[in-house]
């Protein structure tokens, strides 16, 4: 509980087109839900999509060091909850 959880939503072009456009709402809803325990931001390309055919697993979100593939709002919230309850 001491350390803040960091959430990085990739807003690089590949992630954006593959669905992170719909994850932008997290940037508003996460602080409203978790207050200052979680820090959330939209970031430029995380570089995860460029390897081979990995674009197909976009959009990517990083919750601390954990990479979430084909991220959805639900998957990201679940990952945050798991980290908070550890």
């Amino acid at each position: 509980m001491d350390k803040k959880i960091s959430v990085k939503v990739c807003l690089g072009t590949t992630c954006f087109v593959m669905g992170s456009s719909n994850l932008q709402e997290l940037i508003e809803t996460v602080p409203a839900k978790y207050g200052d325990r979680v820090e959330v931001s939209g970031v430029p390309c995380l570089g995860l999509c460029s390897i081979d055919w990995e674009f197909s697993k976009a959009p990517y979100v990083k919750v601390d060091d954990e990479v979430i593939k084909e991220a959805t709002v639900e998957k990201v919230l679940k990952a945050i909850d798991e980290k908070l309850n550890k």
Partner: protein
Amino acid sequence: MAMNTSTPKQTSHLKREILVRLIKAYLSDDFAENTRLIPYDMRPKGSEVPYRCCIHSERAILRDRAIAGLGFSIEETEDSTLLSELANKAEKRDVPEQQPLTVLTTACKGCVPSRVYVTDLCQGCVARPCVNTCKFGAISIQNGKSVIDPAKCKNCGMCVQVCPYQAIQKIIVPCESACPVGAIAKDENGHAKIDFEKCISCGKCASACPFGAVHEKSQIIDVLKNIKAGKKVIAMIAPAMIGQLPCTAQQLKEAIMKLGFADVYEVAQGADITTKNEAEEFEERLMKGAEFMTTSCCAGYNELVDRHIPEMKPFRSDTKTPMYYTAEIVKKEHPDAVTVFFSPCVAKKREALNNPNTDYVLNYEEVGAWFIALGIQVTECEGKEFKTESSAEGRNFCVTGGVAKAVQTLLPEDLPTHPVVIDGLTKQSVRDLKKYAKNGVCDLGNLIEIMACTGGCLGGNSTVNAMKPALKQVTSYVNSSKSIKEQVSGTEQVKQ
């Protein structure tokens, strides 16, 4: 909350992935073979089967989706035709197909025909309002619970409304329910079929189908081919494009030129001509005693009038669309150019077929897929200026209410102008429009803006960005632009 255009969907993910793979295949050294392999690359041996019964079914459906990506009709393609044959055929094609939509009927199987259904919540009550209200005698009580006889039930839904326990539900077919003109329905085999005589190409069925069964036939291969052939290909980006990716309009222009386009025009430039002509036309009509006039920029609405409400024609503005004027300018300035309209919706594909100055139409999903295939990061572009500066009003055409507002800006203040906005075509708004046309009067106002999609073009069926951030981005662009009033006072009015 109902599923809408901006609701995230796995089906969009699939469709976009196939487009990226098709573009990569086209740019590879063996287009036909690499296209044939797409279903196998997406579901390699031993891979998970996320959606269907088995890997073979998954691959077959991915193959069908790729057919639409190649620009062909899924219904009319033989099951035995290889994707490689279709890839070759697509490369040789000179003109895109007439109907822009196609249905993947095998994906329809999971969806049951529309019917009324008694759930387990039925309490077998004594009042029995369902039995009493049914005009067709279709409901009886068996073992203490209501039962509907499907042979007698007409799907009217009266019992649904009267049940005090909300125990009776109507199962809808999302495409049928979304279509404002009854152009799509399940046939006797349970497969959705589009009646192209009725279809206005609004794309609502494509957005509504949870199985992603309705596809747009893509023209991406045609555009890629022209660029590969070294033609001067010019992009015309509709105002809604500005809200699609997290970058500036100038960065977007540079990114599009990196795809191989020779130049990029804002369709807002044509929207400015639409505004000027429509304002003049409205004033003239009002002087002559007209009761009302509707806008004419939305391709879905224009198709609606042409196919279903001919009596509305005298009330619809004769002014051409922003795409029309923009394409005219581009072809005048570059007679040798191939023009591509970047569209938020499928309806513009229909409009382009009747416009000799617009050669191809790409939607925003296709443009986005192209950026992915080439690994272009829009935010890393420096930015290129547009040669012609469009007005704030023109750039706001894609926002619901924006067209009427633009026209109003140029109207004399003492003219009795009452704008009304029809924000999205539904079965109800189509009924309303029929009423206005029949009675020759609209009690809500006299300048009626009609947008087939809720939210305007930003709510188009093939947009990439969610509505809220897209609107924010467009609005900030609009706010940094000059008003059309300054343009009009500065130059002579452009007349068609």
